[in-house]
């Protein structure tokens, strides 16, 4: 009997190549409407005291529980004192806000790192430290610097309080997919140039709204050669280019950082997770809607001169002249910025004196940042005209720095060594600039009034901030190495 020949089935076409963002997005779609609006699942939620009270209140009014308390971590970071916690929080409004968080987490059963818990820190430092931040996950927080967690290949973005409530209630968000942008930094970073300089150079190139509507994937050799701390610094400031999220493909550096962390998978689950994480990087030929290329060797140590993070220049440059602005709107903005900053066009940036130095924040408050600053500070003294402080990003960063003796280096040089928190990045607690004071700051925003009404902020790397503290003016860190 003749066997019937099986009809030849053509092999299925290979799946279209996808970006890292698309892979994470696709794997989190719970429901897709015809117009492309999706309900996407949120794996991890970080909650802090400033943007959550109204969300918990909303749940209470609607008699809704928190859907997955264990997918959530809450802590206080914005309002907390950095000098002495034994006295509680002296400012009444700040205290009420933190107490409200404590009441809410108790009522809704959300895991909480209390004021005295050494794991407490800035949410974006604590999350990764605890292994709560994992590749391929979706992570949100009522804080625009949630983009930090993208360093692990997690889709992480800031949300408003209404969305915090939405996530608490449903563990999802209603979203439309973003566009894909690839920013490649090829080559290796020169001496004295750090992740902070790279992201300031990227923002200067892209502009403060250049990333709006995009998720930026950072790639290239300089990014791959960065530690997780450096990658977090880069992704942290994605929002300063307008992008809600930054992403870096997970690799061996990522896995090494995560291995053994409290919330990272263990044993067989680790191997299973690794197998999945290795498939996350963007496929060859994946489509990006925009592509920006930088050469690492062209990036010098950077500093901002104005009141937008895009106002960044090489430290060797001078204060720009509005007469040379590319258009009328920019000319007006530069003029306003210079008046606010009290700067004269043509002044060398290295001649600009500083009154204060702030080393800390979710951008640059990690152990590696403190090590880089300490290396410059060691054996030197803070200029007599400068008041300088170091605020570790978490209690664990603080403990590690003290174990390594970094606190002593800073203290001997004349720095203050503080307790962890957001501190003078946004000056919601007692740490703030006085009107007219000028600060070399490792934080992320130089907006008018950001660090205190009338305060003037220059954004730079931890090593550059340390150099400014010693010299008493903005300084080129390469002169100190």
């Amino acid at each position, binding site marked *: 009997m003749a066997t019937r020949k099986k009809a030849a089935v053509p092999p299925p076409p290979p799946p279209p190549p996808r970006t890292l963002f698309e892979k994470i997005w696709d794997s989190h779609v719970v429901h897709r409407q015809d117009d492309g609006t999706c309900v996407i699942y949120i794996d991890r939620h970080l909650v802090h005291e400033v*943007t959550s*009270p*109204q969300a918990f209140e909303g749940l209470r009014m609607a008699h809704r529980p928190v859907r997955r308390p*264990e997918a959530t971590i809450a802590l206080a970071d*914005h309002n907390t004192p950095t000098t002495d916690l034994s006295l509680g929080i002296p400012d009444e409004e700040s205290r009420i806000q933190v107490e409200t968080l404590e009441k809410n987490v108790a009522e809704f059963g959300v895991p909480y790192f209390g004021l005295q818990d050494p794991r407490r820190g800035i949410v974006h430092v604590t999350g990764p430290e605890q292994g709560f931040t994992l590749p391929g996950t979706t992570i949100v927080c009522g*804080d625009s610097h949630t983009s930090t967690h993208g360093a692990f290949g997690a889709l992480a973005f800031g949300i408003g309080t209404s969305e915090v409530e939405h996530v608490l209630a449903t563990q999802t968000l209603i979203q439309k997919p973003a566009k894909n942008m690839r920013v490649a930094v090829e080559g290796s970073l020169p001496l004295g140039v750090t992740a902070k300089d790279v992201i300031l150079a990227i923002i200067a190139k892209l502009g403060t*709204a250049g990333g709006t509507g995009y998720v930026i994937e950072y790639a290239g050799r300089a990014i791959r050669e960065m530690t997780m701390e450096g990658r977090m610094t880069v992704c942290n400031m994605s929002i300063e280019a*307008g992008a809600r999220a930054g992403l870096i493909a997970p690799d061996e550096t990522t896995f090494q950082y995560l291995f053994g962390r409290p919330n990272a998978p263990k044993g067989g689950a680790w191997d299973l997770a690794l197998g999945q994480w290795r498939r996350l990087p963007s496929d060859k030929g994946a489509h990006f809607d925009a592509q920006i290329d930088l050469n690492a060797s062209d990036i010098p140590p950077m500093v901002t001169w104005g009141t937008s993070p895009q106002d960044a220049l090489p430290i060797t440059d001078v204060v720009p002249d509005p007469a040379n602005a590319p258009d009328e709107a920019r000319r007006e903005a530069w003029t306003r910025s210079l008046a606010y900053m009290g700067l004269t066009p043509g002044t060398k940036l290295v001649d600009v004196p500083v009154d204060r130095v702030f080393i800390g924040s979710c951008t640059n408050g990690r152990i590696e940042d403190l090590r880089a600053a300490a290396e410059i500070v060691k054996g030197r003294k803070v200029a007599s005209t400068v008041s300088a402080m170091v605020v570790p990003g978490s209690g664990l960063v603080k403990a590690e720095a003290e174990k390594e003796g970094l606190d002593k280096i800073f203290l001997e040089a004349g720095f203050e060594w503080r307790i962890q928190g957001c501190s003078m990045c*946004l000056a*919601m607690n007692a740490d703030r600039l006085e009107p007219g004071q000028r600060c070399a700051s490792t934080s992320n925003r130089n907006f008018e009034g950001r660090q205190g009404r009338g305060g003037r902020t220059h954004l730079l790397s931890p090593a550059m901030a340390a150099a400014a503290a010693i010299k008493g003016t903005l300084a080129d860190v390469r002169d100190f190495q």
Partner: protein
Amino acid sequence: MEKFTTLRGVAAPMPMVNIDTDMIIPKNFLKTIKRTGLKDGLFYELRWTADGQKKDFVLDQPAYQNAKIIVAGPNFGCGSSREHAPWALLDFGIRCVISESFADIFYNNCFKNGILPIKVPKEIIDKLMDDASRGSNAVIEVDLEKQEIKGPDGGTVHFDIDPFRKHCLLNGLDDIGLTMEKKPEIDDFETRQKESQPWLYAAE
């Protein structure tokens, strides 16, 4: 959430670029645990000197004290995710912001609070900014259903908006309520994810 259908009111001009949420509502007003009463903090440092004197900011000028609309420079609402920014605008009486571009998080937050952010091209902003500069005569009408802005001279311009967001604003729909209807799908998602990525559920 209050519905947004049509709005007729004075439009205040704010041509500055990159008006960030720190400017819209400074940090000292973020310590509240309520959504209401934030109008006192709206544009605080632009409206008041450090020693408590009024600065003659546009919203304090007689013509604009009851403004319901802001015509703003590009990249309005950049920076911090604080929803206190739209809460403060709403508390003052602003229900619509028109700009060439908005920062993503702020744009999103507006829709959760019944505020309509309208994106239009630069040439239309230039015209509206000119209209808004006419003081109390700067009455602009916005019709969300028709997606039209009518200027004081009667000329109308069309604007684009995401149909789903439009639907939610027109009907004052509560996002959480809508998503709650998807509960079976969320349950299914979690069942599948727990199977494929059990480590994400290890703490439970």
